[in-house]
């Protein structure tokens, strides 16, 4: 451990750390664009200037290692002048795009200009015009004029995804970021370059022009796309949910997340949700409130004996919901609890970076809850009993992310062999058209709980803004269907 003094504070750092990491550890501000803790060091932006006692000139912090007894500071007038001139060089050819740029409000140039700049530009030459609105594939739009050539995106595609699609073309002040011949940037982690770009050169098509950043709140939770369980920040306001960004977790996902996880806010917004419970009657369909529909199901269950009722789970609910559900299944007395797994052959697929083959966030939690009650019926038993008519009522806790369950139609046909089918789902689906009871559920951003990922780590999810407040969580639905009343102040 080495000792050093940063802006007057004494700290101890490990061997081999750079001065900029020492600044972050001490909690001091330092301006930087091209350094990123998850990527290699480039040293091209020249903004992280520091004054080291004993050295005649200013040095950059991202490529200078800490030595024993180093005294470093960046709050003198000499350093501020140097940073101001470095910023001026970045802004020479930068277009006046703040009203139309998505990055306004979280832009590196805006932030550093307010701290170090605030000068009148004295540049007498004309700005260089480059290409704007270049389409780079399914998810990304490039604006070459706004780029400040920090090369974070180039290093990302070289080191993290190892596909090397992006590069710097041309020379001097005509340099541009791009792909060779504008080929699409279509790897599975492409939208991470939008997060690491400090200016608005790379923007995401899903979020482009939807909202201004200062109108959004954010909260951290866990992605429910696959069993890796990357930590994410979800951005929302009273109009809905707008985007998902990764959060740093050094054990699970480092600083990145995959592209498929960027879509997990879309099924939460109101236009894609079930708002009321639908009950099929002889005369057509009837809309009911979700709690009332669950109580209806409870009165229907009383007509059957306890071994004529089957419950089918998917691995998409939280640990606490499974515990509550198991308690009420005990009360119902049925032992016929099944686990719907639709792609078990590819469960162990892993692409090397983050994506795994198991597309449920909480399979491990479900298996543990089932084993705790020693409920180990197999899928063949379910099919046999449905075919023979021993099961009269099936309760299905349906999937939230329906695109990973392409066999919904066949499974619903299988379950319809029973006399009554009750589906608990948060989103509508054409396969649910002829179901007896369709009850809306809450999505993962509207409940508190925890997911267990593939390695057994338990991570908490948070409750954010409710979209459909009438919808039930799995524990509440099972409680009502078992005949109990909900208590005031119940969790979830």
């Amino acid at each position, binding site marked *: 451990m080495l000792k050093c003094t940063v802006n007057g504070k004494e700290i101890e750092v490990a061997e081999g750390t750079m001065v900029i990491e020492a600044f972050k550890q001490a909690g001091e501000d330092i301006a930087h664009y091209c350094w990123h803790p998850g990527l290699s060091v480039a040293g091209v932006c020249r903004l992280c200037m520091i004054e080291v006692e004993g050295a005649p000139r200013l040095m950059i912090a991202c490529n200078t290692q800490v030595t024993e007894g180093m005294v470093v500071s960046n709050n003198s007038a000499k350093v501020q002048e140097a940073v101001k001139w470095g910023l001026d060089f970045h802004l020479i050819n930068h277009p*006046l795009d703040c*009203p*139309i740029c998505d990055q306004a409000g979280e832009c590196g140039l805006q932030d550093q200009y307010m701290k170090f700049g605030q000068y009148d530009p004295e540049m007498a030459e*004309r700005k260089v015009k480059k290409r*704007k*609105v270049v389409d780079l594939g399914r998810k990304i739009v490039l604006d070459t004029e706004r780029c400040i050539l920090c090369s974070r995106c180039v290093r990302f595609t070289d080191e993290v995804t190892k596909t090397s699609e992006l590069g710097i073309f041309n020379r001097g002040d005509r340099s541009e970021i791009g792909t060779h011949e504008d080929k699409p940037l279509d790897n599975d982690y492409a939208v991470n370059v939008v997060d690491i770009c400090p200016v608005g050169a790379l923007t995401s098509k899903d979020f482009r*022009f939807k909202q*201004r950043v200062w*109108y959004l709140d954010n909260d951290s939770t866990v992605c429910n796309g696959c069993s890796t369980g990357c930590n994410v920040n979800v951005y929302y306001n009273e109009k809905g949910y707008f985007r998902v960004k990764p959060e740093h977790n050094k054990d699970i996902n480092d600083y990145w997340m995959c592209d498929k996880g960027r879509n997990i806010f879309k099924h939460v917004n109101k236009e894609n949700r079930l708002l009321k419970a639908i009950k099929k009657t002889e005369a057509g369909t009837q809309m009911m409130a979700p709690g009332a529909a669950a109580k209806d199901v409870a009165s229907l269950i009383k007509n059957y004996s306890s071994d004529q009722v089957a419950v089918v789970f998917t691995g998409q609910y939280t640990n606490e919901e499974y515990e509550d559900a198991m308690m009420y299944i005990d009360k119902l007395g049925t032992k016929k609890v099944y686990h719907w797994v639709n792609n078990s052959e590819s469960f162990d697929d892993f692409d090397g970076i983050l994506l795994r083959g198991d597309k449920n966030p909480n399979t491990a939690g479900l298996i543990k809850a089932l084993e705790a009650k020693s409920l180990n019926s197999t899928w063949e038993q379910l099919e046999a009993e449905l075919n023979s008519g021993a099961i009269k009522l099936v309760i299905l806790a349906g999937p939230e992310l329906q695109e990973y369950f392409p066999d919904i139609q066949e499974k619903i046909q299988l379950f319809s062999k029973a006399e009554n089918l009750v589906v608990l789902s948060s989103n509508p689906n054409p396969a649910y058209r002829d179901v007896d009871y369709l009850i809306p559920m809450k999505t993962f951003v509207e409940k508190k709980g925890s997911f267990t990922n593939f390695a057994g780590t338990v991570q908490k999810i948070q409750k954010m803004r409710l979209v459909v407040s009438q919808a039930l969580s799995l524990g509440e639905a099972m409680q009502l269907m078992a005949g109990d009343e909900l208590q005031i102040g119940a969790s979830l």
Partner: protein
Amino acid sequence: MSIVKRPDIKSSWYVTSIVKGMALTFRNMIYNIFHKDEMPTVNYPEEKYEYGPRFKGSHILTVKKDGSIRCTACMLCATNCPADCISITAAEHDDPEVEKFPISYEIDTLRCVYCGFCEEACPVDAVRMGPEWQQPGLNGSSFVHDIQHLTRRPNLKGGYLSILDEEERHNSGI
């Protein structure tokens, strides 16, 4: 020690003050009969009061030289408004020179306090407070002004030109 002047005897005869007051009234009345155009009263429906050139009335959205709307949906006016009366939805424009434009811009005049903060906040001179008075209406008329009304209502005679032109700015090299 204070010196108090005793009120003189004439002030207890109320008749004198009545006569003085009536003299004032009759003097003004006869003056108004002979100098009718100097009366301060504004005969409302026929005469209207002239307000100054910086009067803050109904909003106007300016247009560019080719007739398209100047606003770039940056939402600074909606952020600065103290009464939250502006709602904007942005959309992508086909021309890459004009990337962003509003497909819906609504001002709720029942909430607006006509302060002028939106005009101050706009970076491209797209919103102005025009010279027309606020439009009152019966219960049931529409008090939400949309883009069609703000830009191209008949009083504007085709649209106000914005003073900040993108083409001149690009040609001068900024």
